[in-house]
């Protein structure tokens, strides 16, 4: 009866924790149990646990794995996320290193504020911004092209361009935020490193190379690893707000999350959408475990936890 004794002894503390515990149970743990729906022939009347098993049991999966969509959404999700992580981190690193060299505090603060602003707005708004830039009739990009004597391009009708556009948008929205995390790390560097280097006659570049960059690497590595752990998950809001249901762009910009959403809400196919979701969750889980493990090794103090 150790458990009961402890619960009674610290009852106030456990009661304080209770609402949060309950909410995690309802919105995280119950859905985990609910993954069995991927193996069922779901009907709303019989519910999650009462619906009959699918025949064959893996029927929902077979349907997805043998469809064109499987390869398309997997490839797009991995490729686009990889591109976001790689270029996003690179640009954020560059921005933080450059900003760190700016000697005029006011200028530095103003630039910092400007590059952080996109982080504060919703993807729907970003979708409008993208439209203002890329729409065929009056968008800014096409006007620019015409000024240069290049024919206007119908961006929303050509899927090849979107991996680049989406990468650009992703950097635009998040690089400022990431660079401020890096700047915080740089603010913590002991100034004596730089002073000592100066006495030894080190120039600006060699100080950046031998002091600044090595100090940024642990944080950059951890952030990258955590992002790779989530590489199976695309940002639904980003894709749904910018690409939406423009099927012409699906070959390069349909991702697992938008596909699951459409299959569930537009087609009402609970079986297949949950199978796709479970496929994503299981691979995602393995990746998170591996990346967390590596990250932990990298930083003893626990990767955040």
């Amino acid at each position, binding site marked *: 009866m150790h458990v009961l004794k402890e619960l009674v002894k610290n009852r106030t503390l456990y009661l304080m924790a209770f609402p949060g515990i309950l909410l995690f149970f309802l919105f995280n743990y119950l859905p985990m149990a609910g993954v069995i729906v991927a193996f069922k022939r779901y009907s709303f009347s019989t519910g999650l646990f009462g619906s009959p098993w699918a025949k064959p049991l893996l029927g929902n999966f077979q349907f997805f794995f043998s469809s064109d969509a499987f390869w398309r959404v997997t490839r797009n999700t991995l490729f686009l996320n990889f591109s976001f992580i790689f270029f996003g981190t690179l640009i954020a690193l560059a921005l933080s290193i450059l900003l760190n060299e700016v000697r005029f505090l006011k200028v530095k603060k103003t630039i910092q504020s400007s590059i952080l602003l996109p982080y504060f707005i919703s993807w729907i708004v970003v979708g409008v911004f993208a439209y*203002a830039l890329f729409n065929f009739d009056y968008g800014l990009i096409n006007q620019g092209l015409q000024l240069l004597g290049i024919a206007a391009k119908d961006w929303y009708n050509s899927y090849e361009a979107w991996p680049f556009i989406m990468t650009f948008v992703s950097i635009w929205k998040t690089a400022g935020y990431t660079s401020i995390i890096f700047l915080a790390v740089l603010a913590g560097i002991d100034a004596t490193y730089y002073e000592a280097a100066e006495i030894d006659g080190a120039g600006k570049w060699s100080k950046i190379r031998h002091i600044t960059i090595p100090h940024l690497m642990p944080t950059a590595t951890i952030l990258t690893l955590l992002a790779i752990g989530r590489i199976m998950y695309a940002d639904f809001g980003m894709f749904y707000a910018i690409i939406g249901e423009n099927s012409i762009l699906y070959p390069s910009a349909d991702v697992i999350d938008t596909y699951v959403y459409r299959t569930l809400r537009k087609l009402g196919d609970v079986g297949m959408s949950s199978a796709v*979701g479970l496929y994503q969750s299981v691979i995602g889980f393995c990746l998170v475990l591996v990346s967390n493990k590596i990250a932990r090794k990298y930083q003893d103090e626990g990767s955040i936890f």
Partner: protein
Amino acid sequence: MRPPTTAERGLQAALIGSLSLVALACLVPFVLTFTASFTDENVLIANGISFVPELLSTNSYKLLFSDMGRVVSGYKITFAVTILGTALSLLVNALLAYPLAKRTLKYRNVLAFYCFFTMLFSGGIVPWYIITTQYLGLRNSLLALIIPYAANAWYMFLLRNYFKSLPEEIGESAQIDGAGELRIFFQIIMPLSVPALASVTLFISLQYWNDWWLGIMLNEEKSLMPLQLLLREIVSNAIFAQGENATKIIGSERLPTEGIKYAATIITIGPIIFLYPFLQKYFVKGLMVGAVKG
């Protein structure tokens, strides 16, 4: 410090010049959207979107406000969700974080893992959707736009780490004086944690303000449509406010079906832009605290 040499001055100029270009690129869409919202519809389509429109017009806003009821309702819903949601989420996460920060609590590690695991594995949106709508009955209500986000392991751990950094003796001495845990939490721990609470509050409120996922998943009622979804509706079908009322206001001129998208965007981001100087100050502070600790 010795005075900067000419070479150093040149380097600074180049540095600031190139970074200013980046900063400008971040701001361009905002400015462009603003000018587009005040551009005459014919000019917008014929001459293209521009930073200095040839003919200004407020028709886009007139058309938008011709259905004032929906704009006001969108604002109301978004404000209600943001304020109630932030208060609830902050309370739930802080109440959970405090016991987990206590070294005297025997099962704190079990509970911490219970929370942590929600960050590692998820059942996916389909079971979540079925549980939320069919079993918990959370749909077409204001609560549906709030409760699913209330508990958040990420913010909870952020707060726990902060609580952990406070000296434990503070609570202990209050306990000796006869204060209960709840009292210690609300009267001692919370006031001491204002910096952490402020940045978590910011994160949470931004999440609620910008959210539309809960809206498209759990709500079908127009009266519960938050600002973000109203904007989305205006952008994607552009049939908003085209009844008699609109023609009465705009007259015989061309309906600004494109311009209204930009006007609606400005209306949506207005409060964020307005509060931005304040928001970003605390946001950056919060990030700095988090990063140095992490």
